[in-house]
């Protein structure tokens, strides 16, 4: 039987529990019915001691070490794991309909199909949820999946290829096909809370290197941070309703203290004056609300979503 490996790098065990819950409920059984032999692999990119195996039944863990020092090396190392197909699924991306995802497996009947991208980036294939034919990617020069910078000396006008973009480009050049699910269809079947992990790690790094005050300044300067902070609030609502534990706590255990607490987010949002930015934030918050409410409905729980943005 052909083997599928579902693989993901994670920094935070709370988010990983949500990810694992949906992967094991939706994806593992749906792909197993095809039939495929399905394995799940989580790479602990940080906080390895907090990933308790009993909370993640059926998961094989990988840890940071030589040859796999961070999530970027994890991608390429995992290409050579014992499997025929790989589903790279980001820590903050949820495929909510396993039958929908597995239905695309038949695309691989065409030997030229190298991958199916379930969640696009600006309507182009992306690694957020990428189902790969392993041999196609293994044929590329290493590192195939890591991000890279072309023409770096021309900064800021060089080309910053995100993880997987180099591989996609090279495969297409060689005549392979990447099936790219369009944004509309993707949004109906997947939920993407992009940047939530990055925001939490950014808080750690910025505070460590430059102090808490600088972190607060940076929050005000980057709208993407506000979106990620709000998405963490939503993920926290779902997580706490399912597990009755704080999500993204700080070292004192304060809920969302490792991201932005609801009170802190409200305070920062009060300082946003640009009407265009407010419209953008409102639209993005509404999209994220739709995602989390769909996830809650699947779980059979009702969420009380805190109000953060005034009219």
């Amino acid at each position, binding site marked *: 039987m052909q083997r599928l490996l579902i693989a993901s790098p994670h920094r935070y065990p709370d988010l990983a529990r949500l990810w694992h819950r949906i992967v094991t409920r939706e994806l593992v059984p749906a792909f197993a019915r095809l039939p495929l032999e399905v394995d799940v692999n989580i790479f602990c990119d940080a906080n390895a001691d907090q990933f308790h195996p009993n909370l993640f039944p059926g998961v094989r863990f990988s840890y940071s070490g030589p040859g796999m020092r961070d999530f970027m090396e994890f991608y390429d190392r995992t290409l050579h794991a014992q499997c025929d197909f790989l589903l790279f699924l980001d820590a903050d991306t949820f495929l909510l309909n396993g039958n929908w995802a597995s239905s695309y497996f038949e695309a691989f009947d065409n030997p030229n199909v190298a991958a199916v991208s379930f969640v696009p980036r600006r309507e182009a294939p992306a690694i957020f949820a990428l189902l790969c034919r392993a041999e196609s990617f293994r044929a590329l020069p290493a590192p195939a999946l890591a991000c890279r*910078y072309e023409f770096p000396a021309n900064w800021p006008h060089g080309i910053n290829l995100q993880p997987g973009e180099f591989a996609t480009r090279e495969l297409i050049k060689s005549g392979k096909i990447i099936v790219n699910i369009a944004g509309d269809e993707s949004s109906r079947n997947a939920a993407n809370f992009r940047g939530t992990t990055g925001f939490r790690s950014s808080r750690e*790094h910025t505070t460590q290197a*430059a102090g808490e005050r600088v972190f607060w300044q940076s929050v005000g300067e980057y709208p993407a941070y506000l979106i990620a902070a709000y998405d963490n609030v939503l993920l926290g609502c779902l997580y706490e309703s399912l597990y009755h534990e704080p999500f993204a706590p700080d070292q004192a255990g304060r809920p969302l203290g490792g991201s932005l607490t609801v009170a802190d987010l409200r305070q920062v949002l009060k300082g946003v004056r640009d009407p265009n930015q407010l419209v953008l934030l409102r639209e993005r918050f509404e999209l994220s609300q739709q995602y989390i409410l769909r996830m809650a409905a699947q779980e059979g729980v009702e969420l009380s979503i805190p109000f953060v943005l005034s009219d």
Partner: protein
Amino acid sequence: MPLVLARGELYREKRFGPNTVNQGAALFECEWDGGRFEAGLFTGGIFRSGEFVGGIFLGGTFCGTWVGGIWEGGFDRSGIYRSRGDSPSAP
């Protein structure tokens, strides 16, 4: 007199020349050309030249001289990604 950047300061999309010493500021998407980076955070941007002796480097492009500090990830002068704990000056 050198320009000294201190802890608690944040700079975004600024250029710093050889007469700069960073003693703890955070630089987001900045261009560093010369100077000595002793502490703080460099994220995004390009470190064209100068010495990095301390602080955290995260996600930018590094073409300078790596003496020490924490390499969290970023690109070397060829644009190749170097993983956490690597040295951007290594072959």
